[in-house]
C-alpha cells in the first residue's frame, strides 16, 4: 500500500517536472530556431533599409517605423484616457456604486475580447462611422478619412490596450499611502490638488509600467490593424494621420502567406520575427523591473 502510494507520488512529481520542462523547452526551441533562421539576415542594414526586389530582399525599416508610430499614437490616446479612468475608479467612485462596478466589468470584458473583434469594431466604428461621417460632413463625400489609416489603427489598438493601462495605474495609485493624502488634505488642499500634486507623482512608475506593457502588447498584435490601416507594401513612410503604414507583425504574416516565394523570404521572416521578439522582450523586461521596484516601495 505504502509502496503503491509512493509510486503514484513519484509519478505525479515526475509529471509536474516534465510539464515544467516542456514549457522551458518550447521557449528554448522557439528562440534557437528563430535566431538560427534569422541571424544570417539580421544586420544594421536590415533594420534601416526599405524592402527591395518585390520584398524578396532588403530591410524592414518601414515596418519598424510604422510599428513605432502606431504605438506612439496609441499611447497618446490610451495612456491619458486610461489614467483618468483609473483615477475615477480609485479616487472618486465608491467601491459599491453601480457605475464603478459597471466600469470594472467593462474593463475586464474588454481585456478578454478576441483581438480580431477589435479589428472589426475599428473598421465599423472608426473607418465607416467616424471616418465616413467626417468625409461626408467636411469633404462633401470625398474619400479621405473613411478608409484604413494609421490614426484609426492606433485608436483601435488603444481600445485593446486600455485595460492594461487602467489596471497598472489603479495598482500604482493604491500604493500611494493614505497618510500622504491626509497630510495634503489637512494642509487645506482640495481633493483634486491632492491627486495632482501627491497621488499622480507618486504613481509615475505605475503609469510608466502601464504604458510600456501597452506598447509591448500593441507592438505585437496584428489582428486589430488588419482592416484598419496596415499596408502590404509602401514605398514611402507615413507622413500624415490619414496615411497607411507597414507593421512588423503584419509584415511577418504577409511574408509567410502572400510573398511571391515564401521559401525564399524565409530568412527575412525569421529576422523580422527576431526583431519583433527582441522589441517586446525588452519592453516587457523594462516594465517588470519598474513594477518590481514599485512593489518593493509599496511594502
Amino acid at each position, binding site marked *: 500500500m505504502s509502496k503503491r502510494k509512493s509510486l503514484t507520488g513519484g509519478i505525479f512529481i515526475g509529471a509536474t517536472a516534465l510539464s515544467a520542462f516542456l514549457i522551458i523547452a518550447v521557449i528554448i526551441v522557439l528562440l534557437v530556431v528563430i535566431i538560427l533562421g534569422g541571424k544570417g539576415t539580421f544586420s544594421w542594414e536590415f533594420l534601416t533599409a526599405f524592402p527591395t526586389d518585390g520584398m524578396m530582399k532588403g530591410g524592414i525599416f518601414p515596418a519598424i517605423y510604422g510599428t513605432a508610430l502606431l504605438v506612439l499614437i496609441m499611447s497618446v490616446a490610451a495612456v491619458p484616457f486610461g489614467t483618468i479612468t483609473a483615477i475615477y475608479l480609485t479616487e472618486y467612485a*465608491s467601491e459599491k456604486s453601480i457605475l464603478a462596478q459597471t466600469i470594472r466589468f467593462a474593463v475586464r470584458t474588454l481585456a478578454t475580447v478576441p483581438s480580431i473583434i477589435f479589428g472589426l469594431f475599428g473598421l465599423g466604428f472608426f473607418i465607416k462611422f467616424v471616418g465616413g461621417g467626417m468625409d461626408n460632413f467636411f469633404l462633401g463625400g470625398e474619400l479621405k478619412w473613411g478608409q484604413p489609416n494609421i490614426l484609426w489603427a492606433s485608436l483601435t489598438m488603444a481600445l485593446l490596450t486600455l485595460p492594461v493601462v487602467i489596471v497598472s495605474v489603479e495598482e500604482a495609485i493604491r500604493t500611494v*499611502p493614505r*497618510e*500622504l*493624502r*491626509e*497630510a*495634503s*488634505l*489637512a*494642509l*487645506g*488642499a*482640495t481633493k483634486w*490638488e491632492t491627486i495632482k*500634486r*501627491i497621488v499622480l*507623482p*507618486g504613481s509615475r512608475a505605475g503609469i510608466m509600467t502601464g504604458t510600456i506593457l501597452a506598447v509591448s502588447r500593441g507592438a505585437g498584435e496584428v489582428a486589430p490593424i488588419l482592416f484598419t490601416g496596415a499596408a502590404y507594401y509602401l514605398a514611402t513612410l507615413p507622413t500624415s494621420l490619414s496615411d497607411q503604414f507597414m507593421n512588423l507583425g503584419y509584415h511577418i504574416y504577409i511574408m509567410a502567406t502572400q510573398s511571391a516565394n515564401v521559401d525564399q523570404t524565409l530568412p527575412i521572416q525569421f529576422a523580422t520575427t527576431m526583431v519583433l521578439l527582441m522589441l517586446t522582450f525588452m519592453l516587457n523586461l523594462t516594465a517588470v523591473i519598474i513594477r518590481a521596484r514599485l512593489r518593493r516601495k509599496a511594502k
Partner: protein
Amino acid sequence: MKETKIKTKNLTLFYGAKMALNSISVDIPENEVTAFIGPSGCGKSTFLRTLNRMNDLIPGVKITGEVLVDSLNIYDKQIDVVNLRKKIGMVFQKSNPFAKSIFENVAYGPRINGITDRKKLEEIVERSLKNAFIWEEVKDRLHDSAMGLSGGQQQRMCIARTLAVEPEIILMDEPASALDPISTAKIEELIFELKKNYTIVIVTHNMQQAARVSDLTAFFYLGELIEFGKTKKIFTSPDKKQTEDYITGRFG
C-alpha cells in the same frame, strides 16, 4: 479661564452601526494645550479627527451633534471644509513627509494657497522651520529630499509644514509616539512654545507627556468622555474612579 476656541455639543459618531463617540461635549480654550488621553480604541483619535472633519474621508461615518470653532458649526452645510482645514492644522502620528525636498514640503501649503512668489515662499519656509525648531539642522540642505531626515526631524518638519499654512489651531495625533526620548523632548518643548500663538489639541498615549505639556486633560473611555478638567487636577485628584484607575495604571 481663557476664551473657548472649540466647543463640541453632544457630538456622537458612528462607524456603520458601531458607536465610536457617545455625546461628547467639551470646551477647548484658546492658546492652551488640551490633551486627550485614554486606552486604545477609546475614541480619542476619532474625536480629534472630527475637529477638522478628517473623518469625512472614511466611508460609513455618521456624525450628529455640533462642533463649534469660533462659534461657527463646522458641520454646517455652508462651511467650506478646505478653508476649515487651513485654519485647523493637523500633525499625524506617523511623520508623513511628501517625497519632495524639505523646501517643497513646507512650501506645499502656501503654494496651494496660490503663493508663487519665490521670495515670499522662502520667507515662509524659513519662518516655519524656525518656529518648528528645525531650521538650524536643515538650513543647508533645504533642497534635499525630506525622506533623508531622521524620524524626529521629519516630524518637526511636518509641524513646520503645518505652521506654514498659518493655522489658528493645531491638532496633534500622538505626534511623538514613534520617536526616541530626545526627539520627544524636542517636540514637547516645541508644543510649549507654540501654545503662545496657537490653540493645541494633542492626543497621547503617554500620560507623563500629557501631564508635562498640557493645561487641560480629557480622559476618554469606550467612546465616552469620562472626565475633563485642569491637568493638575486630573492627575492629582480626579473626580471619577475610572480616571484614577487609568492614571495610576490599574487598567489600560
